[in-house]
Every structure is written in C-alpha cells, then in structure tokens.
C-alpha cells in the first residue's frame, strides 16, 4: 500500500480540522445545579420599546421568583444571528433561544440546533396536552422530537368593516366560502377600471392571503403517512385553488385586482387598505385590531373566524395559528437554569398573561387563555377562541423550513394569474418538486 506523502496528510488533516471547527457540536447533557447562583443569557427577536419593556418585566418577575438565576437579555436577534451563534457554540452564546420563524422548527429539532426538551419536561412533570393547545404543541416539535415551547401565538381570522356591512345590508359575517363570495361581491363598488371599495383582496400577494392561510380553512394534509407531498391527491388543495381563482375572477379579474393592489399602503403602516377603507374585509392576525385602532380608523371593526368549506361547516371557528418558539441552546452549560426560564416564560400563567397583555398576542396556554387577568375586548376574543379551537391548524414542520409552502405559493401565483391553466398537472408537478427538495435536504 503506497504511503501518503507527509505534506498531503498534513494538508488533509488541516482542512478537516478547519472545516469541523466550523460545525457546532451538540451537547444535550444538563449537569448544572439548578439551585446554584448563575447568570444565563436569553436571546429574543423583539425590538420595539414596548415589547422589550414587556420582556424585561417578565424577566424581573422571574428573577424575583428564582433569586439564584440572573438573566442577561439580548433583543433584536433574527434567525441568521441565532443560527450563527448555535453553529459556533462558545461561552458567549445564548443559553435560552427564541425564534419568530415557526417554520424553521423542523430544522431546529432535527439538527439538534435546539436541545431536546423531553428530559426537562419529564423532570418537571409537565403534561403539555393539558397545558398547551394542540396546534401550538404541533408547531413546536418535529417528528416526535420536542425541541421548543410556544411563547405566545398568532391567530388569524376575518376583519370586516361593520359600517360597510350595514350599508350593504349584510347582517353577519360569512361562515362558508360560498357565502363569502356573495358578501365580497356585495361589498365591492367599481369605479372606472378600478374600485371605490373592494369587498376582499383575494390575490395571494394581498398581504396575509397566502396559500397556507387559505388552506387552513379546508380540512387538508400537506403530507401523506410516508412523508410525501399529498397536495396532488388531497382534493382540498384543488378545491381551494379553484375557489380562490373563481373569487379572483368574480371580483374583477387578476389584472384589475393587481392594479388596485398597487395602490395599497404598507402592511404594517397606517395606510393599510383595510384601515383606509379600500377593502371591506381582510384576512389577518390578531395584531391588526390594535394597529387599526392606533391608526384611528373611523368605522366599527368586526372580527370573526375565516369561513370554511361549504361541507365543513361543523369546523367553523378554526383558523391559522403560528407563533414564537422558545428553547434551550444545546451548547449551554447551564441547561437546567435555562429550562427554568423557558418553563416560566411559556407555562407560568401570570407570566404568559402579562406578556400577552403587553404585546397584544394570543396566550399559548389554556390557563392563560381563560385567565380573568387577560385584557380582552370583544374583537380580540375571536382570536382567543380560534387559538383554542381543536381544528385550528398550522402547516407541519419540514426539514427544509417553509420551502414546501413557498413552492406551493409559487404555483398559486401562476394559477391565479392564468399562466398555469392545468390545475391537476400543476399540483402534481409542484408535489414532485416538494418531494425532491425534501429529499435533497434530508
């Protein structure tokens, strides 16, 4: 057997050393004494002054209840920064981590980027099924591995202009998609080649009217039991795409709607089309209520769950859910202390309620949802009910994040605009692409 030259061996070893140095190693062992005095670091993504203040208030309460644990809080952390820190490890990295990108949970759990919380949950004797609504439990685990806990949530429903409803003689928000079409048409007032008022902006670029938000109102499954994309086989997808396309056509057609959409203000600004009265109904998250009030809208705002498929009326009340996920960094040497903070922030009723009140999000525990201390006005209650509805749902986690959702969304753009005409073939092609992307990521 020929011997490798010494230089070649040295070069290969150097490259291997350099490359492996860049790959963070997971360590799930938690040997720290939870009663010892220690300081842990918590990274989160909130940045607005009111949000940062609310986080700090919760941390202050935690430190009061756990005098041995001090928490260093670092805000405005996005997933890029978070991933970099988790990859690099090191003593200056976070002990407690959080992310707004719910769809990344598949990667966080499968790669070990977030520590497995099962041993901690068992040690704390938490029965999560009795504490946290099922959809929120779903989006914080992947293939049976729980690596995160939900830290408040977002629930999506229908906002409607009560004054416009009254003027159009509409007495109640629609419960089925057929009713919804009729209501949207009644509320639509054309003006030349544009609109004086549009009942509803159905296009997939209409801010929150994306494919997965629509799909949440149909009984559906993105993947079969083998993990293959089922969008071509599950009739719910074809039904949704067909319905949306008909809605687009019935409200003036794709081009006219796109032209009108280009007159809309920013989604997060005061000139949001629902707030300005340009559209009379809007699919949106619970935050819109506060934003609309802050913008000083002149009409009464109604809220309701989004409609459901005509043959699924018994599931009316459900909606799309997502939210912030919180976990423990696997490289942390203070995992027991870190878990204490995660447990407190995500399961302590007073902590969850006060944080939800402060940032106007939906609480993520049953107890907090029913708490008398929760500040609830009638419009917001709709979203609390959606969060507790057993049929509410969120797309399942995937190993490549939200790629399968954006792939399906891409097909949606093609279909709504008329560029793709064969729905069946398009869904099949999209399903094949999703499977190929997941195969590549595994």
């Amino acid at each position, binding site marked *: 057997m020929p011997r490798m030259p010494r230089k070649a061996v040295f070069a290969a070893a150097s490259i291997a050393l350099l490359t492996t140095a*860049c*790959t963070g190693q997971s360590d799930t062992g938690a040997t720290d004494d939870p009663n010892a005095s220690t300081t842990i670091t918590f990274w989160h993504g909130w940045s607005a002054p009111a949000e940062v203040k609310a986080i700090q208030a919760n941390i202050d309460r935690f430190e009061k209840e756990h005098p041995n644990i001090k928490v260093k809080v670092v805000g405005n952390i996005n997933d890029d920064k978070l991933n970099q820190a988790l990859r690099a490890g090191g003593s200056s990295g976070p002990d407690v981590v959080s992310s707004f990108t719910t769809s990344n949970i598949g990667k966080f759990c499968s*790669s070990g980027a977030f520590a497995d919380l099962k041993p901690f949950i068992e040690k704390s004797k938490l029965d999560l099924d009795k504490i946290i609504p099922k959809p929120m439990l779903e989006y914080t685990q992947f293939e049976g591995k729980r690596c995160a806990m939900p830290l408040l949530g977002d629930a999506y429903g229908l906002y409607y202009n009560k004054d416009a409803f009254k003027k159009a003689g509409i007495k109640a928000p629609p419960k089925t998609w057929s009713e919804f079409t009729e209501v949207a048409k009644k509320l639509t007032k054309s003006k030349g080649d544009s609109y004086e008022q549009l009942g509803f902006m159905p296009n997939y670029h*209409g801010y929150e009217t994306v494919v997965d938000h629509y799909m949440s109102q149909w009984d559906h499954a993105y993947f079969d039991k083998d993990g293959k994309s089922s969008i071509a086989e599950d009739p719910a997808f074809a039904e949704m795409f067909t319905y949306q396309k008909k809605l687009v056509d019935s409200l003036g057609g794709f081009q006219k709607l796109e*032209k009108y959409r280009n*007159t809309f203000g920013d*989604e997060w600004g005061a000139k949001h089309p629902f707030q300005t009265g340009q559209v009379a109904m809007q699919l949106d998250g619970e935050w819109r209520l506060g934003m609309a009030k802050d913008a000083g809208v002149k009409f009464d705002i109604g809220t309701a769950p989004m409609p459901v498929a005509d043959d699924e009326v018994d599931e009316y009340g459900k909606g799309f859910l997502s939210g912030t996920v919180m976990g423990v960094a696997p490289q942390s040497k203070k995992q027991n202390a870190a878990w204490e903070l995660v447990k407190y922030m995500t399961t302590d009723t007073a902590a969850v309620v006060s944080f939800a009140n402060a940032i106007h999000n939906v609480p993520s525990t049953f107890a907090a949802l029913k708490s008398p201390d929760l500040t609830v006005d009638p419009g917001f209650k709709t979203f609390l009910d959606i969060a507790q509805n057993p049929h509410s749902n969120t797309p399942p986690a995937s190993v490549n994040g939200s*790629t399968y959702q954006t792939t399906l969304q891409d097909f949606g753009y093609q279909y709504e605009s008329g560029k793709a005409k064969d729905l069946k073939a398009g869904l099949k092609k999209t399903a094949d692409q999703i499977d190929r992307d997941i195969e590549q990521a595994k």
Partner: protein
Amino acid sequence: MSTLTLRAKRRRSALRTAAFMSPWLIGFSVFFAYPLISTVYFSFMKYDGFGVPVFRGLDNWNYVFNDYPMFWPALRNTLWLVVVMVTLRVAFGLGIGLLITKIKTGTGVFRTLFYLPYLAPPVAATLAFVFLLNPGTGPVNSVLGDLGLPTPGWFTDAAWSKPALTMLALWGVGDLMVIFMAALLDVPKEQYEAAELDGASAWHRFRFVTLPNISPIVMFAVVTGVIQTMQYYTQPLVAGKVASGIIGGSGQQFEPGYPDKSTLTLPQLVYNLGFQRFDYGSACVVALVLFALSMVFTAFLMRRRGGLIQAGD
C-alpha cells in the same frame, strides 16, 4: 564555512521576505484560500450548518443544475444584468463624464448633483425607486399617464423589473462618472490639437484619441462592474420584497424573485439555499458557479482589452 554563511544569509533573507509578506499571506490564506477551499469541499457535502458534514458526491451539483427551480432563472437574470446593466452604466458614466468635462460653468454643481445619488444607501435608494415607480400611486406613472404614454408595471411586472433595476443603477452612476472624468482630463491636449489639424471630426477624435487613452479605465469599469453585478443582491431583493407586498408574516419566510422570479440573482440563491433551506452544500455550488462566471468574464475582457488598445494604437 563561507558556503554555510551564504546559506544562512539566504535563509535569513527568505525569512525576512516572508515576514514582510506575512500580513498579505495571512490575509490571503484566511480570507481567500481557506474560504475557497472550504466552498469546494462543502459543495460535495451534505451540510445543514449544524451537524457534521457528510460526503454526498455530485448530488448537490445535480440538484442545483437539474432540480432547483430557481437556478436557471437566476442565471439568466444575472447574465442579463451583466450584459445590459454594465454596458449602460459604463456608457452612461462615460457620457456624463464627457459632458461635465466639456461644460465651462457650473462644473462643480453638476459633478455634485450626479455624484450624490451614489452615496445613497442601497436599501433607501431602492425603497425610493419602488415608491417613485409604483404603478398605482407613483409620480412617474402619473406623469406618463398625463402625457398619454404607456404606464409600465415596473417592479410589479416581470418584463419591466430588470429595466427598473437598471434605471436605479444608472441613477447611482456617480462613481464611474468621477473615474471617467479623471481619465478624460488626463488625455494629452496635444493629441486633440494634432487630430483637429488633421481634420478629425468630433467622433473621430473620441474614437481615435479619447478611447485609446482611457481604455484601461474603461476596462477597469467593465471588469469591476461585472464583478459587482455578479454580487448584485440588495437592490433586487428589497425591490422584490417591497413590491410584492409580502414581507414575511409571522412564522413565515420570504422567497425572493418577485415578480415571477424576474428579480432573482445568483447571490440571492446562496442565501436562499444556505440560510433559508439549510442546504449549505448546494449554496456552495452556486457560489462556485458565480466564481467561475466571474473568472470567465474577466479573462474574456482582459483578452479583449489587448485588442482594444492595439486598435487604438
């Protein structure tokens, strides 16, 4: 004994040379050689950024070229921008430079006016252009409409998004203008006088006097323009994101390229694959494609440069 002394002297001299070169050597190794070798290495690996890299042969290359739906549109867009945007930027920068060197009064004012946009941060400049070119509410289309001219969809129309990005790039052409002005002012006046005595027209003076003299600067502008365009990321991403209306709501990630993948560029794919899909191996493949394309373009242009100077001579 004298041989040993000579050898020691040579060794000392070599060490001294290495010591003087060490800042560059360290910089080259850390910031160029190692990343390049790593990129090649990871392009053959399955690596999600967290676990241990696993060898997977040519799978990543096969995926990017055959199955990744964004690669070919991004490559086409990048090539379009390299050919059209770079050409127009060089021509526009040279044209403005020529104009400003010719005018007698107000040179400083015009130079400042044309240079200022270059200083605008890319994100702010792109946001301003998306606002100005908004097909529904933007002032540009209002004026075009009032004049009875067609009102394009700009950043919302796949056919117009790249021309709109090109307009944005032309607006910020101040860097090239300054470089060309310096080069134009450096052309010996005697050559123009001799050409005029020979009866050369303005075009001939430009073609046979100006161009040969500034050809190294033209080549510099083209080569750096090509490399910059290969790395074109911020403007198309921001324009696509803002114009689409979907900024990435709660729990979601944004897929670049709006409208209809027309603003996708290769650097965006590196981000999409590496940081959104956690597929660092495939991201490295795209990075290597970018590297190879930059090398090919630069080599091609450097060969052409010889021809240009010869023709001028």
